[in-house]
C-alpha cells in the first residue's frame, strides 16, 4: 500500500508537470487523480483492508498524497490564469495616464524657500516687512545720513506724496530696524522680499528684484559666527566643495563690513583666464554683502551696544537663482513664460 501511494504521487506529479500550460490536460488529470472516482479516492477505499495497527500511518500518508497532488494541480491552474488569457480583455497600457499636472512654484520662490530652509536649520526665523517705506527706516535708522555720499549706492524710487515722504524700499534692511524696535534679543531672522531701484532694465538689472536679509543679534555674537553661517549657507546652496572668501567693504549699517564671494560654481575657482563665462576667469563670484551690525544702528532702536552684538547680511535672490539654475537674463523671471516656469 505504501509503495502504491509513493508510486501514485511521483506519477501524478510528473504528469502534472508535463501538462503545465494546458488547461484541458490539467482538467483531465484533476479528474483522474482527485475526482470522485479518481485514483486517490480509490486508494482511500482500500484503507479498510489495512491492518488496524497500520491504519493511522497509511491514513496519514494518503492525506498527504491528496494535499500534495491537489496543491500541484491547483498551482498549475493558477499560473495558467495569470498568463494573458487572450486579446479579448486586455487594455493598451501604453496609453497616457489621465491626470492633471501639478503646478510649479516660481524659481524665485523656490530659491527663497531653499535659502529659508538653510537658515531655519541654523536657528533663524522667517519674517516679512512692508515695501512702502519711510526715509527713516530705509536710510536714517540704518546709519545712512540723508545728505551723505554713502546714500549714492542706494538710488531710490520716491512716491508722489500724500503729505509725508515715502519711498519703495531699496533693500530689505529696513526690516532690521522695524523688527528690533518690537523685539528683544537674542533672535535670528531672515527677511525675504521685493525691493526696488531705478535701474534701467537689461539682462542683469531689474528695477524690481528680491532680496533676503539676515540679522542675528544677541549677547555674544561674533564675526566668526557670521562667517560660519555664511559658509554653511554657501555649501548647502551651491555644493559642499564651495569655497568662500570675504573682502573688506563698506556699508553704513555694518562694521566691519564685507563683500562675500564664493568659488565659481562653473569652473570651481580654477580661474581659467577669460574662459569661464560665469566668473570671467576671476574664479570668484560675488553673492552677498555682510557685516557686524554697526553700534549706531543698535543705538537708534534703543539697544545697548555695550551689551549687544550682531551680524547682518543681504543677498539678491535673482543673482543666486541665476547662478543656481544657469539663467542668463534676469527679465525671464518676470515674463512668466510657462515653458520657463515649468523647468524648475
Amino acid at each position: 500500500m505504501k509503495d502504491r501511494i509513493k508510486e501514485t504521487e511521483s506519477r501524478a506529479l510528473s504528469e502534472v508537470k508535463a501538462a503545465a500550460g494546458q488547461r484541458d490536460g490539467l482538467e483531465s488529470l484533476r479528474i483522474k487523480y482527485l475526482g470522485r472516482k479518481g485514483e486517490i479516492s480509490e486508494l482511500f477505499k482500500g484503507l479498510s483492508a489495512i491492518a488496524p495497527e497500520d491504519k493511522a500511518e497509511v491514513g496519514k500518508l494518503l492525506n498527504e498524497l491528496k494535499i500534495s497532488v491537489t496543491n500541484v494541480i491547483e498551482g498549475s491552474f493558477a499560473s495558467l490564469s495569470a498568463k494573458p488569457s487572450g486579446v479579448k480583455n486586455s487594455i493598451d497600457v501604453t496609453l497616457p495616464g489621465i491626470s492633471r499636472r501639478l503646478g510649479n512654484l516660481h524659481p524665485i520662490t523656490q530659491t527663497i524657500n531653499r535659502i529659508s530652509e538653510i537658515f531655519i536649520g541654523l536657528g533663524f526665523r522667517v519674517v516679512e516687512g512692508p515695501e512702502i517705506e519711510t526715509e527713516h527706516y530705509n536710510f536714517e535708522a540704518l546709519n545712512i545720513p540723508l545728505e551723505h555720499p554713502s546714500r549714492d549706492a542706494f538710488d531710490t524710487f520716491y512716491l508722489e506724496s500724500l503729505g509725508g515722504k515715502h519711498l519703495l524700499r531699496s533693500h530689505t534692511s529696513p526690516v532690521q530696524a522695524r523688527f528690533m524696535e518690537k523685539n528683544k534679543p537674542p533672535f535670528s531672522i531672515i527677511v525675504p522680499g521685493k525691493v526696488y531701484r531705478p535701474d534701467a532694465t537689461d539682462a542683469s538689472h531689474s528695477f524690481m528684484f528680491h532680496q533676503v536679509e539676515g540679522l542675528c543679534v544677541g549677547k555674544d555674537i561674533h564675526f566668526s559666527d557670521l562667517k560660519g553661517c555664511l559658509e554653511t549657507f554657501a555649501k548647502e546652496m551651491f555644493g559642499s566643495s564651495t569655497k568662500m572668501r570675504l573682502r573688506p567693504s563698506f556699508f553704513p549699517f555694518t562694521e566691519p563690513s564685507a563683500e562675500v564671494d564664493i568659488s565659481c560654481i562653473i569652473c570651481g575657482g580654477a580661474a581659467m583666464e577669460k574662459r569661464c563665462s560665469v566668473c570671467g576667469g576671476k574664479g570668484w563670484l560675488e553673492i552677498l554683502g555682510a557685516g557686524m551690525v554697526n553700534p549706531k544702528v543698535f543705538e537708534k532702536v534703543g539697544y545697548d551696544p555695550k551689551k549687544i552684538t550682531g551680524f547682518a547680511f543681504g543677498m539678491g535672490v535673482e543673482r543666486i537663482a541665476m547662478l543656481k539654475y544657469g539663467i542668463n537674463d534676469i527679465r525671464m523671471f518676470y515674463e512668466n513664460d510657462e515653458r520657463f516656469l515649468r523647468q524648475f
Partner: protein
Amino acid sequence: MRISYNWLKEYVVLKESAEDLSEMLMSAGLPTESIENIGGDKIIEVEVTANRPDWLSYIGVAREVAAITGRKLMIPLVKKPEIKAKKVEIKIRVEEKELCPKYTARVIRNVKVGESPAWLKARLEAMGLRPVNNIVDITNFCLFETGEPMHAFDLDKISGGEVFVKRAKKGEKITAIDGVERALEDSMLVIADSLKPIAIAGVMGGLSTEVNYATKNILLEAAYFEPISIRRTSRKLSLSSDSSYRFERRVDISNVNYSSDRATELICQIAGGEVGEFIDIGVKPAKKNPVSLRYSKLDSVLGHKIPPVKVKKILTDLGLKLKTSSKDKISSEAPGFRYDLKDEIDLIEEVARVYGFNNIPSTIPPIVAQEERMSSDVAALRKVRVAFTGLGFDEIITYSLLSKKIIQNTALPVESSVCVANPLSIEQEAMRPSLLSGMLGAALWNINRRSKDLKFFEIGHVYGKSGSDFTERQFLGACITGEMSNWADGSRAYSFFDLKGAVEAFIEALGIKGISFANASDCRFSGASCASIEVAGESVGIIGEVDANVLKNFDIKAPVYACEICLDKINPYINVKNKFKILPKYPSVSRDISIIADKNTPNLQIVSIIRASAGEVLKEVRLVDKYSGKQIPDGKISLTYRIEYQNPAKTLEEKEVLEAHAKVLHSLESELGASLRG
C-alpha cells in the same frame, strides 16, 4: 578712480604686477573694476567706498600699499617757496566760516602759461583728462596726487582787488569753465570778486577768470569746504566734478597747505613766476580725541584673539599715533586723512581688515529655541502655495510697477493708484492696485506663444491710498483660460466653476470654515458671472469671468476667469492648530432625491431648505446631477441631490431615514413648489 600703475610707482615701490597689486588692494577693501593696458602702462579702475576718501589720491593709495606691505611711502618733499613779492596784493574775506573753515590763497606773478611738458600731459591723459595748459594741468595733477582739489584764477580778471567766500545772491548767474551758464541760489557757496561770482566753490571755476595762454598772474586757491554744502550745491546744479566729488566726501584739512606748496613748486618749475605771500584763513585743525580700543571688545566682536603686539603694529602701520597702552587697551590718534576712524568699532574694523577676514575662524551662533520658525503670515503663504500648485496652477511673479495705461485697461481707477514721483519710464509709473493686470499680461504672453491650457496664480502686494496714508496688502490672484483635454474625455473649455472649485479647495486646505459666494458686480468682471467671496460674512475677494472690454484692451480673445483674495483678511480664519475628532462609529446612509424646480432657483436656496428640514441626522448634502431637456418642462430643471444621513450615537434605522427624507421632500414641495421627479 583710475590708478596708473606707472604713476603709483612714484610713491611706493611696487614689486608685484598690476594684477597682483589689484588682488592686494581688493583684500584691503579697494576692489578693482577693470584693468586696462595703455601704451606700456596699466590703468586699474578701482571702486572707492564712501568711507575712504583718502583713496581718491595716489598718495592715499600708495600709503595703503605701504601700510600692508611694510614698504616705505615716498611723498614728494616740498620746500617752502621763497616769497619774492611781499606786498599783499589781494584781500581774502571769508564770510561763511562754517561752510569754509579753511581758505588759502597765493599770488604767483609772471607765470608763462603754455603747453605742459610731455610727462605731465601723459599723467593727465592716463586719468582720462584732456590737457589744457600748464597751470590748469598742474592743479589737476595735484588733485590726483594729493587728493586736494585746487583752483587757479587769472588774477588780473578779478575785479576790485578782493576775493569773497560767501553765499551766492538768489538768481545770480555764473558761466562756469564748461561754458554753461547757471543760476545760483542763496544756499550755494561761491568765490566772488567785488562784482560777481568767479567760481562755484569747490565745484567749478568761472569762465571769466579762467587761466589761459594770455594769463600773466594767477591766484592759487586751496581750501577745505564743508562736505554737505558742496554736495547740496553739486546736486542742485546737477554738476559733479573731480573737485566736488572729493570735497563732498571730505578732504583732509591738514593736507591743504602741503598741497598748495606742492602745486606752487611745480608751477615755479614748469611755468616760472614769483611767489607772493601765503594767505591762510581759518581754523587750525582741531586736535582729535584719541580713540581707545579694548582687547576684550576686539575679541568679542571678532570671536578671535589677535595678539596685542599685532594690533599695535597694524594700527601704527596705518598711520595712527599710539597715545597710551595698557594690558587691556590702547588708545591712539587717527591721522588727518583718516577722518573715518572715530570710534572703537572703526579701529576694530581696521585691525580685522588688515589681519585678514579670511584668517578669522568660522563658528556657529547659539540656536534660540522657537515654537515657530516662520511668522504666521509667512507660514500661511506656504500653505497657499502648496494648495495652488497641487491644484495644477503655476506660480507667476509680475512687476508691482505698471504703466497708468495698463491700470486703465484693467478697468481700475488711475486716480487712486499710488504713483512714483521719479519713475524711470511711464511703463513703471504706478503701483498695482490689483493683481489682475499682471495676470492678464502673463496670460497674453503665453497665449501668443500658443498655450491653450493656462492656470496661474500670484501672491504679492497691492497698493492703495487711505487718507494721507498708503496701504499695502498681501493678495492672492489666480486665473484660468483655455481648455482641459485628455484622450478619454475629450476637451472641455474652462468655466467659472473650475476656478471656483480651486478657490474652495484652497480655502478648505487652509482649514477655513464658512466660505460663501454671493452675486456681485465689479467693472473688471462680466456682469453675468461675478461673485464676491465671503468668509464669515465678510467679503475677502472677488471671482468672475473677466469683462469682455478688459480682455479686448489686452487683446485676449479667449474667456479668462480670474479671482483675487486678500490674504490679510483671511489670515485670522486660517486654522493651523488642528485637533483630532473621533471618527464616527456608526455607518451613514445615503439617499438621492431628484426634484423638478424652477430653472432659476439658486442651489444655495435648495441646499438650505434640505439642511433645515432634514434635522439632526443630516450629515452632508451635495448636488450630483443637473439636467434640463427632454421630459423636463420649459422653465424647469431637474436636480439630483445626494443626502447623507448619520446618527453619531447609534446605527440609523430605516424608519428614521425615511422620515427625514420625507420631510426634505415635503419642504422642497411646499417652499419651492418643486416636485419629485418620477
